[in-house]
């Protein structure tokens, strides 16, 4: 798998943990409408299959597990609602700012208003999207090892405590009930605002390319999403047509069956019946296929789009760090220049010099004072610039690493998604093939 990620950075292979012996399969299924004192909500069943010992040993009788296979046989099932997923997402985003967080389906306020949020078309789509979210987490080397995820996937009581003590604010920030500490976050926000209109001057070639490619990737997926949507639409209308054709043929059959004076029509009636049956099955199959497209494949595509969006967010964050460093660096150079000017004697304004002379200020003394001031400034700045550079460089490294992870997860997800697509298409055609071969034999 690593061969697929051609990076110039060797640290990549060292730090990205290999997932070889690490199994974390998550399935989200069975959206169920439930009621509690505050109203209705939808519960999703989250089933996990994993060989990570802590997943099992912390919650179950350790003696049960004699070998690794036993871990896999112990399927962990919990029920979570959408807000739980949202909470998990928020915690993870805050905990690991340098990671590309997989997208979570948005709240869909509209559906809440229209009351459509319990319809299968809504919950099924959301269910699949949530599964995509968890599966991407499972593929991620950092996220998959986080304790929060483990709690989310395994424990009943622990997660309840999380839910009660932490509330998610609208802005995406987290208010932790007990400590209420979110200072770091606020600082980041002000940085973002300050540097919103600034651009990175010395963008490394690597990132220029990553940006460009991610744009293209997003564009392609977006286009495919759009056109697939259209395909689904025409498939739907075709389903309708088949249905109508089926009805039309049914009527014709009835009409012919009523007429006694036509000979040979028995045989034809039988054939019509067989043929019409085929059309009917075609209707059903096509409907199923469209459903798959609508509920799963399109959701996959959209999630992928959002995922690329997350990547872009990370890139922006990285840029900000870089901008921080560059700003500081500028400031430092300025200070050094000033100092140098003063030392060489050319520094300062002629008029200010004159003024100071008139005022009787000892030019030499003040100059020395200034130089001393600047020197301390430069010293602090230099250390700050060094820090900023370190931070920026580190972040860049991390980001690069993360992009590699992204690439990996993206490939995995795409493979799965395309495989599913092919499977569904094959199933669709195979069903039809069976039906129609039978029909051909009978006709």
């Amino acid at each position, binding site marked *: 798998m690593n061969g*697929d*990620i*051609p*990076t110039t950075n060797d640290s990549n292979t060292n730090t990205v943990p290999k997932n070889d012996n690490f199994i974390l399969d998550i399935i989200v299924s069975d959206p169920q409408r439930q009621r509690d004192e505050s109203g209705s909500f939808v519960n999703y069943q989250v089933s996990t299959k994993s060989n990570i010992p802590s997943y099992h040993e912390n919650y179950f009788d350790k003696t049960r597990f004699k070998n690794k296979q036993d871990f896999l046989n112990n399927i962990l099932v919990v029920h979570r609602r959408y807000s739980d997923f949202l909470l998990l997402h928020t915690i993870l985003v805050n905990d690991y700012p340098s990671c590309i967080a997989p997208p979570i389906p948005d709240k869909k306020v509209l559906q809440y208003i229209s009351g459509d949020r319990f319809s299968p078309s809504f919950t099924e789509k959301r269910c699949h999207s949530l599964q995509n979210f968890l599966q991407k987490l499972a593929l991620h080397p950092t996220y998959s090892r986080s304790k929060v995820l483990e709690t989310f996937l395994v424990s009943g009581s622990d997660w309840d405590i999380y839910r009660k003590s932490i509330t998610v604010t609208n802005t995406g920030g987290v208010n932790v009930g007990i400590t209420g500490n979110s200072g770091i976050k606020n600082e980041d926000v002000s940085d973002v605002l300050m540097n919103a209109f600034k651009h990175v001057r010395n963008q490394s070639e690597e990132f220029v*390319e*990553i940006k460009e*490619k*991610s744009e*293209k*990737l997003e564009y*392609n*997926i977006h*286009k*495919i999403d759009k*056109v*697939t949507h259209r*395909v689904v639409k*025409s498939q739907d*209308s*075709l389903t309708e*047509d088949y249905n*109508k*054709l089926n009805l*039309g*043929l049914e*009527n*014709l059959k009835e*009409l012919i069956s009523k007429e006694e*004076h*036509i*000979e*040979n*029509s028995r045989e*034809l009636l039988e*054939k*019509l019946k067989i*043929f019409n049956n085929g059309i009917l099955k075609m209707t059903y199959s096509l409907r199923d296929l469209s459903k798959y497209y609508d509920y799963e494949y399109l959701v996959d595509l959209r999630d992928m789009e959002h995922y690329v969006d997350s990547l872009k967010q990370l890139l922006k964050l990285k840029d900000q760090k870089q901008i921080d460093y560059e700003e500081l660096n500028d400031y430092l150079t300025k200070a050094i220049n000033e100092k140098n000017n003063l030392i060489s004697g050319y520094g300062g304004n002629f008029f200010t010099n004159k003024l100071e002379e008139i005022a009787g200020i000892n030019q030499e003394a003040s100059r020395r004072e200034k130089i001393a001031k600047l020197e301390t400034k430069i010293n602090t700045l230099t250390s700050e610039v060094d820090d900023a550079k370190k931070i920026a460089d580190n972040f860049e490294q991390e980001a690069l690493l993360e*992009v590699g992870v*992204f*690439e990996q997860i*993206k*490939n995995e997800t*795409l*493979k799965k998604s*395309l*495989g599913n*697509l*092919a*499977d569904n*298409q*094959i199933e669709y*055609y*195979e069903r*039809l*093939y069976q039906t*129609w*071969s039978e*029909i*051909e034999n009978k*006709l």
Partner: protein
Amino acid sequence: MEPSSGVSFVGLLHDNNASDEDNNNNNMMSDSRNNKTHEEIDFGNEHNDDDGYDDEEEEEEEEEEEDNNPYSGTNHMYASGIAAVLEERNDSVHHRYHNNNNNNNNNNNNEDYSSSTTTANNPSHEQLKDNYSQQLFGSNYATIKTNSGNIENYSNSIASTNSNNMNNHNDKDEGYIVSYADLKNIVSNSNDSTHNLPDGATGIGDKYRFPIQIIEAGQYRNSLGKYAIGYTISFNSQLVTRRYSEFDSLRQSLCKLLPTIIIPVIPSKHPLIKYFLNPLSAENDLKTIEKRKRLLTVFLNNCYSHKEIRDCVVFAKFLNPEYTWSKVLSSPPISILPTNTLLAPPLAPTKPSPLHLLLPVPSHIVLDPQYLTAADSTIDSPKFRKYEKFLHFYYENCRTIWKISKQEKHHYEQLTKSLAELGAYYNAFSLENHIFSTYKVTELSKGIEKIGQAIDISYVSTELLFVNFQKYLEEPVCEMLQLIEESEKILKFRKLKLTQFYIIDKTIIKRNKTLKQLENMDTDLSKIEETLAKNASESRTVAKVVENLKKQKIISSSKTTDGICLPKSDPTMKSHPFLASTNSRDDMIDANGALGPTGSNNAILTSETGNGNEDDNSNTTHSSRRSSVKTVHNENSNAIINNNNVSISSTDVNDKTLSPTLEAQQVSPTCDTDSNDRLNQSTNSKDTILLKQEEERKREIIKLKTELEKLRDCFELIKKDMNEVNSSIDYELVTLFAYFDEKWDYMMRVLTKCILSWIKDSLDSWKNARELVNHI
């Protein structure tokens, strides 16, 4: 037939002979050598050099023949069609087996096809088949002198070459043909076909089923030197090019010539506006032309399969290149068609029959089963009403299906468009799916590309599917709709005929009634006279009356002999209706009015039967064959005369129970009704009139009897007509239903094939994609 084929030929047969190279461009030479090879089957695989110089005569002969064909040596269709000679056929077969990959195969196949058509009815066909197989065995297996071949071998080989040939092409367009080639197997198995494939893709099985082929459609120059789209028909080795409008006029002529037969339909006309905006030209409306070509082939062959149409001289002339179609249209039998097919023998309208001209012409269908006689139950069978109802429902049903299929087509168009786009995007995606720059084609890219390919194939096969849906669902259903419309037309014709029948039937009944009444009147009158005479002996006043009566009688008789003819509009004459009527017999117009005097019942009859009856009556009473007199004129004059009477008799109209739908023309009888009223009244009040009329009455009875005789003749005629029409239409409809059944059967089978091939194509491509995705 192409230089290239000749080259490879020579190469095969005369490897070592360098001198033959000079002849490489001479097809005829190599062709004839092939012939020769065929004749000396023994050579088989050996490709003996020696046989290269034999049979110079034959070679020359052939050259001559070939020279006659202006298209020889080209890919042009004519090359194959015109040159459908036995020797050449052998050539082509030979060609094929030596040059399987030659592009010219299309041509050869087609040639084969047409030449076999030529010999389809040939007694020497069997022998030809043997020739074929000998040749086959000779060239393919090098078997020496095999006589036991059969046509199946032959066709199998051709089929295989066909597909070989098809598989050589890689273009997308050619892909269609491959599938067509698959389809031809279905076609050859089914009884009916809408199948006409371009070029050589026509299956060999078709040749027994499609005696007529349209081998080319495109621009041609007609006799006037005008360019038009022509359809070149190949039939019995003859080629004739006809335009769409000529097909149209053929069809119309056939409809008139054979009014009781459902004439196969042709595709509907190009909308006129569309024509003005964008006239049909060979380049830009290929779709329409292809569709027309296909449907016109079906039309011709359906015509051909119908005995009546096949035997029709017009149809034969249409297929014969010696006739210019415009001249055929202006010559018999089309030119001598009667203006109204109702006044002619229904099965042969061009054969004149004087008695038919006496039949009434109903302007609308009036079927009144109230007047049914015993004979009617067979003539007006309820079966036809059932048919009509059934057809109506069938029509509605087919219409909905047709609409659905049109809609479906529209949606398929959208789908294929999206699929094509999607395939392109996937391909783009396969190139740009990585964040990191990489020059290595990754597995993912391959997988995505394969998915894109699968979608592309889905697109192509879906497009093919919907083209087939159009061809095998929409078009046949449309044809059915047209055919139902046609059958409704002939059913209407039958109804008009039936109306004729009813009119005559009713007239006979009325006439009989009147006759009886008149005869009864005779006896009544003699009774009255008797009583009067008896009374006269007792009373003087009565005796006076009797005397007066006798006097009047003399006067009236003298008037009669004088031949005074007064218009009936004269109120005084109304008291002497018999007189007036007898005198006016010579006058056509008055004669019509004169029908009335026979009684009020007659008036009802006239009012109900309408003009036709009057016309009929006038003709019958006169027994003069005034066939040339146009009914229209007759009606008009009637109307004029009768209008005069309206004012006078309108008050009397109510006296009798006349049908409320009295028209101007029918007033004349009412006027007579009124006179008849008076006649009846006069039996009590004015005996004088009665006495005077006695003589007239007797004359009238004789007239009525002759009339009745004529009517009975007509009745027999129309009865015969009806029976003919009934049996013909019954047969036609049953055939039509069978045709429909067959068509559905065929459609379903072909569609199943199409759907299956679509599924197979798509399934394979997706499986392929799945495999590659697994490797990611």
